[in-house]
């Protein structure tokens, strides 16, 4: 039997995040031959409805209110619960992002349902769907199922392939009016520290620097390489502690967990806390002067050498490749 599944479309800088398209694919698997309903919450977001449909939603429900301009758990919970009330879903999928992590437990708490967080793959379909998620900082995995109630999951960015975009798909985008009241927390200020451009947790390529980068300036060649590959720059805790870069770039047990297609670790020794944040990347390249560095144990390819010599050469080679393949 098919299920009705709600999938939250998450916005960042006026556009839908990739993880929302991945969530639609997961929603499709859970729905089986049922219905996938996209949900958009914000001040003016209805224009993104068609995009959700192109990526697999059958229709879209929009809740708009000026109080929803910025995310707050109170505001978004009221809006999402109004959609739940109107739709009576049997499944819910969010991205496992800052917003998804903050909002999903509250919704699950309110609905008295289970919640399977940080899912990296799904097996089976419909009622038999099994969720795979990393535990113990990525050193082990568990398979989970829902015993009763709503099938609710958050999915880790970059792990579940989105469906192919089909702009010819059509579906209804309807607006639901919901009363948003009593925001108990008020945002006073937001300081954007994360670098412009590609979002680290969603990047397909990550160039990460460690203590071996030696200074703030030392990150420049890494940024150039990232720009050529359309990737993002990250860092180890060591580099952040040494103030070579902002903590917003930190990858590891504390910090961000990333699973890009390509992870290039530059001057990173490979402490266990760092590995927890990147060891599930598809291909790992290590560049380090020390042939004994721990990072070589998890790397697919290693170059023993000075990163300040290797990285610019690598940037040049990738530029050539880009010219040759374009």
């Amino acid at each position, binding site marked *: 039997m098919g299920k009705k599944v709600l999938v939250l479309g998450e916005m960042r800088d006026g556009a839908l995040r990739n993880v929302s398209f991945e969530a639609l694919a997961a929603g499709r698997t859970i729905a089986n031959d049922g219905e996938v309903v996209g949900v958009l919450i914000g001040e003016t977001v209805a224009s993104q409805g068609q995009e959700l449909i192109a990526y697999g939603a059958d229709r879209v429900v929009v809740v708009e209110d000026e109080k929803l301009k910025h995310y707050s758990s109170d505001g978004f919970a009221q809006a999402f619960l109004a959609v739940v009330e109107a739709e009576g879903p049997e499944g819910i999928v969010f991205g496992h992002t800052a917003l998804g992590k903050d909002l999903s437990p509250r919704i699950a708490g309110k609905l008295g349902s289970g919640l399977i967080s940080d899912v990296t793959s799904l097996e089976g379909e419909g009622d038999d769907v099994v969720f795979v998620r990393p535990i113990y900082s990525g*050193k082990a995995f568990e398979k989970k199922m829902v015993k009763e109630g709503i099938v609710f999951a958050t999915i880790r960015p970059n792990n579940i392939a989105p469906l192919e975009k089909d702009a010819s798909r059509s579906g209804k985008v309807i607006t639901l009016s919901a009363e948003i009241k009593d925001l108990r927390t008020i945002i006073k200020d937001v300081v954007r520290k994360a670098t412009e451009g590609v979002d680290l947790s969603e990047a397909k390529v990550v160039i990460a620097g460690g203590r071996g980068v030696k200074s703030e300036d030392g990150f420049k060649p890494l940024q150039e390489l990232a720009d050529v590959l359309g990737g993002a720059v990250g860092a180890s805790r060591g580099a952040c502690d040494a103030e070579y870069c902002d903590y917003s770039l930190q990858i590891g047990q504390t910090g961000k967990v990333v699973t890009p297609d390509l992870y290039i670790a530059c001057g990173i020794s490979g402490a266990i806390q760092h590995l927890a944040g990147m060891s599930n990347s598809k291909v790992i390249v290590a560049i380090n002067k020390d042939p004994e560095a721990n990072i070589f144990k998890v790397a697919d390819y290693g170059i023993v050498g000075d990163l300040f010599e290797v990285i610019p050469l690598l940037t040049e*080679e990738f530029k050539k490749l880009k010219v040759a393949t374009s």
Partner: protein
Amino acid sequence: MNFYVLMKRTFDTEEKIAINGGQIAEDGAEFIINPYDEYAIEEAIQLRDEHDGEVTVVSVGSEEAEKQLRTALAMGADKAVLINIEDDVEETDQFTTARILAEYLKDKEADLILAGNVAIDGGSGQVGPRVAEQLNIPYVTTITSIKIDGETVTIVRDVEGDSETLETSLPLLVTAQQGLNEPRYPSLPGIMKAKKKPLEELELDDLDLEEDDVEAKTKTIEIYLPPKKEAGRVLEGEIDQQVKELVDLLHKNNKVV
């Protein structure tokens, strides 16, 4: 002021992980206070020292969690509560834990409840917000700073690297992010004092809960280790040749660029 801290005893994930009989092998493993909960305990102690009141650390688990609760008392917490569910509940998930904690906290008139934003073993990050929802109080996750001024609370939280300043009021639940503080090590006098501090042990019965009330909504069907990665290749030759070979491999073999 009444400060409550939600604490989990966790496997130290810096340890080597092995599977035994479908479970993570615990023999000889090191157990610790979940590192994010340590931030929560430290912050509660500092806030109590500034505003007066009492810090109570609460844990749901088995008898073994007594050791980590004593450590929290040695850091400076005033009281500890262990809700021992070992004999009552077979399968637990975040619904279970949150339901029990909310039941315990509902009549405690807590002003501020602190927890870690995630536990490093299960990694779900659900329990804090679930408890707040059940107590019908506001919550703020992944905080890096908190200041209480009368009824007004000013908080800075980390949002994927950006920092967001917000204002809210008590009662409140917050979850701690790295950067909130530097947790202290228990001092020797602290450890001596902790032995005499109250550690209350409760069971489901004491909270008027039945096993059915807290039955898990999800179940784990398998735990396994990731497939061993084949040893990587350290490239050889002149550096510029290595770089060419690497780009070639990534393009043709792995097809990631």
